[in-house]
């Protein structure tokens, strides 16, 4: 366990010093700060627009950070040869991979906490209503699970594809899993869907991580909507996320274990 913690904390130390990540984070924070001013561009209720924009900025910024942070993580260690000094010590490859992943998730969590804090302050200063803040914070918590899943996907791909390919592969799967998964689900469940299309939809549903599970912003943005049995839903999708992360990490370990570095 000790090597995993050491590798994770080193990964965190590196991540919070990576200029590219800090720039993305700063841009995200800047958009969070100016979001109230952008509300005038929409004809909808000011609170609805503000909530939507704040959550949208956090989700988008976190997704970019998650991908940029993880796609270069393993290849950089190989290119700079730091991996050799680590793997020549009593560190198993799985410990290295899990440590790197946990470090990435920690970094991501830290950056998301920072953005969420800025979001909460911005919302409070604009609305002068602190009671709505805890409700608003629920979405970033779910986004964190979503981003941890995205990070696991990128770490899995990073064990066998180049960073640029990984960037598009992970990003593409995130967009597909976020936007089209509900469509595939509907296709799968509809009685009028032809059998071939149904099988294909089911297959996509099983293989593709369902990132849409964590897009819980609608009930938060629109007070009229709600998730039935919210607690159970959050628990269920979190377990789904952890399960999927586990599968991706095991897959990554199996590939990385035989990989020539």
């Amino acid at each position, binding site marked *: 366990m*000790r*090597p995993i*913690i*050491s590798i994770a904390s*080193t990964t965190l*130390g*590196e991540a919070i*010093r990576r200029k590219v990540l800090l720039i993305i984070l700063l841009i995200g924070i800047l958009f969070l700060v100016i979001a109230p001013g952008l509300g005038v561009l929409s004809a909808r209720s000011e609170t609805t627009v503000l909530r939507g924009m704040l959550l949208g900025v956090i989700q988008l910024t976190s997704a970019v950070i998650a991908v940029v942070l993880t796609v270069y993580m393993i290849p950089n260690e190989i290119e*700079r*040869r*730091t991996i*050799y*000094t*680590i*793997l*020549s*010590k*009593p*560190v*198993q490859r799985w410990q290295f991979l899990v440590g790197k992943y946990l470090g990435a998730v920690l970094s991501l969590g830290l950056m998301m906490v920072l953005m969420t804090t800025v979001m909460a302050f911005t919302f409070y200063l604009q609305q002068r209503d602190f009671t709505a803040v805890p409700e608003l914070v629920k979405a970033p918590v779910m986004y964190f699970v979503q981003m941890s899943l995205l990070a696991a996907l990128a770490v899995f791909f990073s064990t066998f594809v180049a960073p640029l390919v990984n960037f598009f592969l992970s990003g593409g799967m995130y967009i597909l899993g976020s936007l089209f998964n509900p469509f595939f689900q509907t296709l799968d469940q509809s009685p009028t869907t032809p059998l071939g299309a149904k099988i294909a939809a089911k297959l996509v549903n099983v293989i593709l991580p369902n990132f849409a599970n964590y897009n819980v912003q609608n009930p938060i943005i629109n007070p009229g909507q709600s998730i039935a049995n919210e607690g159970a839903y959050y628990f269920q999708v979190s377990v789904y996320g952890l399960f999927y992360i586990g599968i991706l990490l095991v897959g990554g370990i199996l590939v990385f274990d*035989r990989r*020539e*570095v």
Partner: protein
Amino acid sequence: MAAAIETTKLTKGYKSRIHGTVNVVDKLDLHVEEGEIFGFLGPNGAGKTTTIKMLLGIIYPTSGEGYVLGKEIGDMDVHRLISYVPERPYYYEYMTGMELLKFYGSLFGITDVKKFEALLEKVNLHRDASKTISQYSKGMQQRVGLAQSLLNDPKLLFLDEPTGGLDPIAHREIRDLILSFRDEGRTVFISSHELSEVELICDRVAIINRGVIERQGKLSDLLSGGRVEISAEGVPTQFISDMKINDANVRAIPGGVLLDMPEEADITAVIDAVRAQKGKLLSIVPRKKRLEDLFVETVRDKSVAPAAAKKTLTVESGDKP
């Protein structure tokens, strides 16, 4: 003496679309004894780093077998007893020297700050312990690398080009450290291009070329068989040539003749012959064989056709007797 490293027909091949399977290391039989400094030499792309990576268990051999400290390569128990400093190492630049040792120490479960301080002192970095790695010079980075490699008190150290790109002072410091490792009873496996450095510190060497071990043995044995240069005047070149000394070169020089021959050849016979010809002996200069000569000879021999490489008595100048 027990073997620190023993390989038998260790091979690493890569599949190539054009050339089929290419063996970058081919049937490597290596023997490194405990407590010695072993030089692993070869030109670029000879297979040195690939061999080290196989011995460390970072890459997997295609065939053959290898043992490090008596255990099969890749055995995790061995990793507690060995260390590795790669060529041009990169360490996390934001860390200080002390933090770096703490990080690598934690991989072994070592948390003793006094030990870290002692190691930094050993590599003469104790005054720079709080500087970040990005502030370290190349030589300092190499020294902190050596410090991290000593954390687990290793029995066997793998050093890949330990003095590459360093200035003469840093060279000297690293060399002294390596020699101190041997004094402490450690085995040191050095892959290097710095032949003069290797010649100074290594007990035994192996020369690898195109993945194949060409020579291996004690440095003193491999460098035996130096040459002697005898110059004389008043003796016809052809007369010396006619003596048929094996592996000798005879050539005319202004005012005389120069004979270059193996040191084990009969020097007295040549001196007697010069005297018999009423010639005058100008000089007898013994030339010790250097590692560089051996290396160039070994590596170049492989690229020269055998017939051309075969050494025979030759007359290089058409000096008429």
